[in-house]
């Protein structure tokens, strides 16, 4: 048995936010599924709202400030990532995209990622598959098959909420399955282990 580190990136803007609500439920479902598989887990939540100014600053300066660096390190060190955005104007929010724009191109490579999104109506649910999924594919993340979209109506009737909970449980189970066999994330820090110069010189 070993501990799996989950990092949750949530881009909700309202407080309280239904995006955060979905993110928390996805995290809980994943933790439960990991527990069933005999793993302990830790959860770190990155609220992008609190980093909105830092993310804009990074766009302008090219480097992450201290607070944003801590969040990026949380993502980097995670065994699994849960990423949830509200859908605005047919796609993920600009804040959500800007955060991922600021990551090193290979930071998510091979990392299991569960994607989620929230919106006012269910008509935007395909944004998960035409916006979030391609972005994480580009970043070479391993995306769990089930993405979870929650519309406002899903938080209402028992029937709809039940279906949402079923999707959440399935998605959490899929992420847990990827984390079950996968070795915990090890960060290969190029500052700790640089490519030897002879290799750079003779194998361009």
């Amino acid at each position: 048995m070993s501990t799996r580190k989950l990092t949750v990136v949530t881009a909700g803007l309202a407080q309280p936010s239904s995006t955060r609500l979905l993110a928390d439920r996805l995290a809980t479902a994943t933790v439960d599924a990991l527990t069933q598989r005999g793993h302990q887990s830790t959860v770190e939540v990155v609220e992008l709202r609190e980093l909105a100014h830092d993310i804009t600053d990074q766009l302008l300066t090219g480097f992450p400030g201290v607070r944003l660096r801590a969040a990026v390190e949380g993502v980097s060190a995670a065994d699994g990532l849960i990423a949830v955005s509200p859908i605005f104007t047919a796609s993920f929010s600009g804040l959500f995209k800007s955060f991922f724009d600021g990551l090193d191109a290979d930071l998510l490579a091979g990392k299991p990622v569960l994607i989620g999104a929230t919106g006012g109506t269910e008509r935007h649910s395909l944004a998960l598959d035409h916006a979030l999924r391609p972005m994480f594919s580009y970043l070479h993340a391993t995306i769990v098959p089930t993405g979870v979209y929650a519309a406002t109506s899903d938080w209402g009737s028992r029937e709809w909420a039940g279906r949402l909970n079923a999707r959440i449980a399935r998605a959490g189970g899929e992420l847990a399955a990827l984390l079950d066999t996968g070795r915990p994330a090890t960060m290969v820090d190029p500052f700790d282990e640089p490519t030897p110069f002879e290799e750079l010189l003779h194998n361009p």
Partner: protein
Amino acid sequence: MQFGIFTVGDVTTDPTNGRTPTEAERIKSMVTTALKAEEVGLDVFATGEHHNPPFVPSSPTTMLGYIAAQTERLILSTSTTLITTNDPVKIAEDFAMLQHLADGRVDLMMGRGNTGPVYPWFGQAIRNGIPLTIENYDLLRRLWREDVVDWEGEHRAPLQGFTSTPRPLDAVPPFVWHGSIRSPEIAEQAAYYGDGFFANHIFWPASHTRQLVGLYRRRFEHYGHGTADQAIVGLGGQVFMRASSQDAVREFRPYFNNAPVYGHGPSLEDFSTQTPLTVGSPQQVIERTLGFREYAGDFQRQLFLVDHAGLPLKTVLEQLDILGEQVVPVLRKEFAALRPAHVPEAPTHASLRAAAEVAAGGADDSVSAADDDLVASTR
């Protein structure tokens, strides 16, 4: 320890009065700033290299040669010379020529530039940034060290029986710094050759500079050039000073808020906390600069950025007066007192020539002893 200034050479509108200098004014003000640097007792002037507006310094050795003719002690350097898109043959020629004209007061800093389209404009591909840096620099070293070069590589036409002229002054190639903002490969390159490593430093948190310099120092020792604390490190710094820190902040804030690199982004206060930017009294600059050694170790060269973001020439010259009169003399004394005896000064033409003479003449002498004795500053 060497102190100096480095300039980006940006033509930027003064946000306090809307005035934009002409290219001619900016170029001449860079020269005036360099001459002032020598007058107030600084050691180094380094110019950037850019190939797009709003920057003027596309031809560094032309400018440095002109400055060399009007100075006597100042070391002329670059920040940086584009090792990616310049032909290494032309770099070898230009800087050897400058060495002769400046009686050896020349070194240079390699870099990759900050403008992507410069690669295609000069016939290269940005994806080859690191391979170009590695191959071109290896050729440059050979051009300076071997009288006749046969060479073939990936990124340039082959050379057979080529001699780069003029040969380096006294057969001593200019000392080279490798400048980097974030690439571990560049720290590795500097360490491999035992060259200097210059951390840009100014737009990044101290933790990042610690990591980058730490890697260079470790690998410098690994490649057998000395102990890690004997590696040759330079750092950037960015300052604006007035007698009172309130006055400094009030005067500099509009320039900061509209600066080309970080303007309209973080607040002056946040940026000052997160990067080495120091806007305040001379005493504050002294304390902050001395603090750099806590994470970069004992270093050999400190370059300040003082002339960007549309600051008028008069203000820049006042900054240099403050540096020369109130800041650098104190820093020289304090750093000298803190530096252990086995940590060398930055190599100069004189120290490199003396080391070469000893190495050539005294074959029975231990080379390491010669290195220890002769890697000393002219100051």
